[in-house]
């Protein structure tokens, strides 16, 4: 490999190709795009959490500008069913049908020349409804006394799952046993760009073109075609620049269906842009878990077993495509974390409530599960009188056990989990922290270790029976006559910098300069089918597919180049953007080969591959049980016992993502995830009142971490290759968001230990910290 290759290919912190347009305000987001004759939509949304909808009276004179479900003929309901036994089916109408099931549910679409006028129309509609008691608490929801969100159901639960290892003998043999009741709050993912949809009907192509801010254009296309009764060829999804996703844009939206239906009906382009009020009140939709967890350990802290009763608030409907159970049903399989666990008894409920339907947010269940496991481990350690480090070292899967299959069947591919912990602890001066504690300072040190399954595919998801089981990922590569390489992928970037990283992958194989690689994504008309960007899968799956396509292209390029060099194909190699004779006696550039194929075909060798310089290749790791990146998060916090405020004094992450295709971008992913994890740990919370009303309607109420809240984190990398992926890379997009609640709350509880206080609920906001201190004081009296 030449020095130049080392500087631009896999492993290089190449600056991002996409930066320039954003830095000059030339990004193109849905809201930046207009069409002649375009109409704007404002939705009339439910003001109540639960009601029978009797009627909508449209404003006089504007009847034709207000559309209820009855005005959208042929539109089908959204169904995202699971094949798991016992799953209860919810049907989500694009606009409310007879019943209102959460605040913010869309009831009618109001259409006008401007959004302001459309909002005027929405405000002038009169709703007649009969309010019903709302089910806002996930623990009360499944009780027989609770009103039913879906009348035909027997209880408010999408699904229950059970794993029933016998833990009844553990009380007799365990040295320590702890039980904790823990809770996390409902959050809003809150990308700075909200959702946005621009739908237009192309009468020439007889095609619905929907420009929408989505992470999964192809899945949206399939779902939208289903709901509109169109052939998939009649739907094209364009996803331009996406202003943050995190899972929030991994969904088929009711609003997409409505806008598309309106555009067909009205013969004019129709656009809806979500505003922040809508986002917070209608789409706070993630992370709300409750655990009662018991763990048993021996004298050294080795886990003997865990028992867990987990409830996840799944909201009112099952969203497409991931469904209502993606978090709760995974709790049991994620709970063992990176540890060797002999026994697990776990019961989960995906509770159905009068709240917005759950979406999988960065970390997907892991953030809550890691929080539960890590705080429980610390409680065990305190009981045993051993350190947080010791209890983890007693249980982490050792490197010589890799690949390791745990008790629930998860297969860890590679890594040295204990080393990440040792490196993290070694980076802190614990003696100083203990000395400060001895002086009465309320400071603490906390750890969280975890692993993140990423890029898991068919072998994992088929058991779920969700509408989309990921399979092979395809990439299409095409050399242009001028030697520029186009790379087409069906995954879509929403900040991950794939225009750069996939160009690095192509460069790694072909040696074409990344500036001469054009990554095309975000348009179903231009890219191969893909289940999209989620589950930390893009760099493993699309990266692998691009590499495979480039390798196949290299063979074709090599064969033509060899003919031009008048040697056998076996006597050349494609390297550094050139076809070189192995004896170093001559070379032609890939651009020369491209020119020959397109413009001087008389010079092509006989028997040349007729497929030319375009290749579509598929890729799936074998096995596709997923990569496991892992990390140790460590935090030092200071707690103000007067105000309850928590300050993060120091934070370190030791992370192993396998081969880092672009270390700078990986750091960015980890740091961005960390900031969101700090939000989960300390700030973010959508409270609901007893009527199911969301109480944080602005960003002054719903607190997102700012520059002053996220410390200048220390990052340390290990690099253990995955044996199953193209370059040894592992999915790592979500990892940063998983560890912070565990590490931070463990640090808080370490600080509060002298007071006998322990925080159990997230976020560990000042009122909760104070409540924990007061409860401890009360218990002492």
């Amino acid at each position, binding site marked *: 490999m030449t020095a130049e290759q080392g500087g631009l290919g896999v492993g290089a912190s190449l*600056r*991002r190709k*996409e*930066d*320039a*347009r*954003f*830095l*000059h*305000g*030339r*990004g*193109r*987001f849905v*809201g*930046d795009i*207009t069409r002649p004759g375009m109409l704007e939509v404002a939705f009339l949304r439910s003001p109540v959490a639960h009601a029978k909808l009797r009627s909508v009276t449209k404003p006089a004179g504007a009847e034709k500008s207000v559309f209820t479900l009855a005005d959208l003929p042929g539109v089908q309901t959204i169904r995202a069913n699971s094949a798991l036994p016992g799953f209860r089916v919810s049907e989500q109408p694009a606009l409310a049908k007879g019943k209102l099931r959460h605040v913010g549910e869309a009831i009618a679409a109001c259409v006008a020349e401007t959004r*302001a*006028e459309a909002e005027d129309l929405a405000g002038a509609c009169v709703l007649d409804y009969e309010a019903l008691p709302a089910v806002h608490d996930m623990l009360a929801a499944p009780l027989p006394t609770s009103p039913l969100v879906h009348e035909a159901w027997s209880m408010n639960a999408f699904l229950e799952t059970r794993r029933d290892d016998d833990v009844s003998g553990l009380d007799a043999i365990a040295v320590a046993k702890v039980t904790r009741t823990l809770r996390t709050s409902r959050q809003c993912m*809150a*990308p*700075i*760009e909200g959702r946005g949809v621009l739908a237009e009907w192309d009468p020439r192509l007889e095609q619905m073109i929907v420009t929408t801010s989505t992470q999964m254009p192809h899945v949206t296309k399939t779902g939208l075609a289903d709901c509109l009764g169109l052939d998939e060829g009649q739907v094209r999804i364009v996803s331009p*620049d*996406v*202003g*943050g*996703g*995190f899972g929030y844009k991994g969904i088929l939206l009711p609003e997409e269906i409505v806008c598309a239906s309106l555009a067909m009906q009205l013969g004019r382009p129709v656009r809806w*842009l979500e*505003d*922040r*009020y809508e986002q917070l009140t209608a789409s706070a939709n993630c992370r709300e878990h409750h655990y009662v967890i018991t763990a048993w350990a021996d004298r050294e802290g080795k886990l003997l077993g865990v028992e867990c009763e987990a409830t996840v608030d799944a909201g009112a409907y099952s969203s497409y495509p991931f469904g209502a159970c993606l978090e709760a049903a995974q709790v049991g399989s994620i709970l063992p974390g990176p540890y060797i666990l002999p026994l697990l008894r776990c019961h989960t409920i995906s509770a159905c409530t009068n709240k917005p339907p759950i979406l999988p947010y960065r970390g997907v269940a892991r953030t809550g599960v890691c929080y539960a496991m890590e705080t429980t481990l610390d409680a065990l350690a305190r009981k045993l009188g051993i350190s947080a480090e010791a209890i983890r070292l007693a249980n982490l899967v050792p490197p010589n056990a890799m690949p390791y299959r745990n008790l629930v069947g998860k297969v860890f591919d590679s890594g040295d989990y204990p080393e990440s912990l040792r490196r993290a602890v070694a980076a802190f001066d614990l003696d100083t922290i203990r000395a400060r504690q001895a002086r009465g300072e309320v400071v603490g040190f906390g750890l969280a270790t975890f692993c993140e399954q990423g890029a898991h595919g068919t072998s994992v998801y088929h058991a779920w029976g969700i509408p989309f089981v990921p399979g092979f990922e395809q990439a299409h590569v095409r050399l242009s006559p001028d030697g520029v390489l186009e790379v087409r992928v069906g995954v879509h970037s*929403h*900040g*991950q*910098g794939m225009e750069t990283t996939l160009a690095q992958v192509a460069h790694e194989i072909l040696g074409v300069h990344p500036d001469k690689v054009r990554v095309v994504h975000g348009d179903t008309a231009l890219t191969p089918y893909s289940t999209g960007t989620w589950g930390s899968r893009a760099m493993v799956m699309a990266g692998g597919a691009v590499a495979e396509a480039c390798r196949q292209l290299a063979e074709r390029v090599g064969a033509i180049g060899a003919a031009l060099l008048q040697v056998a194909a076996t006597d050349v190699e494609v390297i550094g953007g050139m076809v070189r004779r192995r004896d170093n006696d001559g070379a032609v550039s890939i651009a020369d080969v491209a020119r020959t194929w397109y413009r001087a075909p008389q010079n092509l060798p006989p028997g040349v591959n007729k497929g030319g310089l375009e290749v579509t290749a598929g890729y799936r790791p074998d096995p596709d049980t997923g990569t496991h990146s892992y990390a140790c998060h460590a935090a030092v916090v200071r707690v103000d016992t007067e105000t309850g405020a928590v300050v993060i004094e120091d934070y370190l992450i030791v992370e192993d993502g396998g081969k880092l295709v672009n270390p*700078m*971008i990986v*750091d*960015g992913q980890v*740091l*961005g*995830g*960390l*900031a*969101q994890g700090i939000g989960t740990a300390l700030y973010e919370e959508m409270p609901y009142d007893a009527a199911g009303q969301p109480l944080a309607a*602005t*960003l*002054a109420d719903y607190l*997102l971490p*700012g*520059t*002053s809240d*996220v410390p*200048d*984190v220390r990052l340390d990398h290990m690099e253990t290759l995955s044996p199953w992926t193209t370059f040894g890379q592992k999915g790592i997009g979500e990892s*940063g968001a998983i560890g912070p609640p565990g590490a931070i709350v463990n640090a808080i509880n370490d600080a509060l230990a002298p007071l006998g206080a322990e925080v159990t609920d997230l976020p560990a906001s000042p009122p909760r910290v104070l409540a924990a201190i007061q409860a401890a004081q009360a218990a002492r009296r």
Partner: protein
Amino acid sequence: MKKITISLTVNGEPRQVLAEPREQLVDLLRRELMLTGTHVGCEHGVCGACTVEIDGAPARSCISHAGSCDGASVRTIEGFGEDAVMADLREAFSHEHALQCGYCTPGMLVVARDVVLRLPEADEARVREEMAGNLCRCTGYRGIVRAVLRVLAARRLHA
């Protein structure tokens, strides 16, 4: 709704536009003047994505009534073409990976430029305080803070 005429200078060009009295500056910029580099984030003045310069100072264009900007001079992200500080910031933002999705970036840059010019001696704590009114959901802020510090340090070196 009755419209009013607003005269203002945008990115150095005198402009006369019609707007509804209830309209905010950001909508005027984006719709009437097609300056879509200024983004709408929260529409209630918290997130900072819509920050532009009004008469030389950063301001939230989502809560600045268009009508009240009559006679004002407005500069948006598209209007910093030759500005040396902005060029340095753009370079530093890319170098420090201070942007991912790019949505908050224009507002960040307008505020960052103000910080660099107004507080040449600012340290990290001060930069974090000054930038606290602009939310980013992608980066975790480290790159942003480091980019601003980088430009400040370079300017001190060459002062």
